[in-house]
């Protein structure tokens, strides 16, 4: 299950470059105080909002990257490149949120269902004073943090801990890590290319998993499946299965 391994390497490299230029903050398990749960991720009106991350008018990238490579994910780690919520009070900022997941024992044919399940599990993250909205295909995330939550000291670490706890409820998940960027538009947009590729891989995976007949000649993912070893293998096994 190395389907996103190339993307993980690329994202790590980009994160390293940005961290070396701008510095970073990191929280390990045990360093994050618990934050109270919300009541179902309610809308927060602008008049109650202090901080907005990734609103529709600013760049926003959301990526979930899965691997079965043991030890490649630092379980429970939340890292941030850019200002934290208290530094952004009264402002809007772009957002990139990257969730790394290590999971084991997932058959190739179940990979799409797992990927989808992980993304849907994220929707259960409900933190007091925080509204999160994910766009179609989970490509963007828009987050509002209320004035009250900022006053009480809400941090990206709390958002990360919520994400990690939710993903870890899924049985095959062994480790979860989250990296966030809230700095410049350029920093966030640097991930656009890899995010686009991840989205294409996920869409191809979905198509291979859901469709019975595969007409590769007309498929818009044909180039991707031919170039990507895991997708190519999955495509071959599907073809054999279809006779």
């Amino acid at each position, binding site marked *: 299950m190395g389907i996103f391994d190339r993307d993980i390497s690329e994202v790590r490299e980009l994160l390293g470059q940005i961290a070396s230029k701008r510095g970073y903050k990191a929280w390990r398990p045990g360093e994050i105080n618990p934050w*109270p749960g919300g*009541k*179902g*991720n*309610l*809308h*927060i*009106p*602008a*008049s*109650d909002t202090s901080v907005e991350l990734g609103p*529709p008018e600013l760049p926003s990238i959301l990526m979930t990257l899965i691997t079965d490579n043991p030890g490649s994910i630092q379980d429970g780690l939340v890292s941030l490149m850019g200002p934290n919520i208290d530094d952004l009070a009264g402002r809007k900022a772009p957002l990139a949120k990257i969730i790394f997941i290590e999971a084991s024992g997932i058959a190739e044919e179940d990979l799409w269902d797992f990927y*989808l399940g992980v*993304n*849907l599990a994220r*929707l259960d993250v409900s933190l*007091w*004073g925080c*509204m999160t*909205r*994910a*766009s*179609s*295909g*989970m490509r*963007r995330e*828009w987050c509002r943090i209320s004035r*009250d939550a900022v006053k*009480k000291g809400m941090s990206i670490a709390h958002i990360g801990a919520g994400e990690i706890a939710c993903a870890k409820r899924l049985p095959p998940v062994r480790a979860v890590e989250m990296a966030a960027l809230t700095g410049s538009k350029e920093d966030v947009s640097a991930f656009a290319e890899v995010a686009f590729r991840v989205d294409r891989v996920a869409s191809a995976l*979905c198509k291979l998993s859901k469709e019975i007949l595969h007409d590769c000649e007309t498929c818009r993912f044909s180039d991707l499946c031919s170039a990507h070893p895991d997708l190519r293998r999955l495509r071959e096994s599907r073809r054999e299965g279809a006779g």
Partner: protein
Amino acid sequence: MNTSRESASRPVLLFCGKGGVGKTTLSAMTIQLLCGRGDRRILAVDADPAMGLALTLGIWPERSLDDVLSDENALKGGRDEVSAALDYEISGCIKESGNVSFIALGRPEAQGCFCAVNHLLKKAIEKLSLAFDAVVIDAEAGVEQINRRVFDAVSHLFVVTDPTKKGAMVADTILSLSRRTIRSDYCALIVNRLKVGDEISSDTAAGFDSWCRIPEDSGIRFFDLHGGEPLFLTRTSAAASIASYLGDLKLI
């Protein structure tokens, strides 16, 4: 931790009736009057494809619910994915101005029925109303949205009519239909645009929990003709009448 807004029971006010009776103006006045208490967050819903409430309040959303449905990239995937993306798209349709958060049905361009966009409107009201202290909905003229159960439950159903027989007939039809299609705690008749000498039969108000009369107001006619700041509406004599009535109902 909790906020009062999450736990409070909130008024959901629906204005409906025949076209041209003043629903939109009364909705706008009510929104302004509710805002007069500065600590209240109001969700204003323009459920009329004519989008008159947007014009009256001077709030123009960049995106309507109909735009969401017209955007083939907005709601893709299976049921759960679409459900998740719906929250994003609905929040993206809200235009915020002070304490008012405004959302509009939009003007469906495609031919055919409005079922899909009305269903989206219903979802939007369900999902958003919990986050606000009050919700004011300006419905489409006539009975279509009432009949199609677009508004599942409201606290106050205000059926607006003018002194005409036709207006009274539509009001009566809405009342009858609403008994089957809307769960409402309180149903009131508002007889708007009354001129000196207009007689209203007490039968007109039969079946309603209460009714109120709003006199014809030259200030509103001036506003309709020339436009102006929405706050102007609250200074009219009609606004004084509706304010008094809403006060009696403990809404302001």
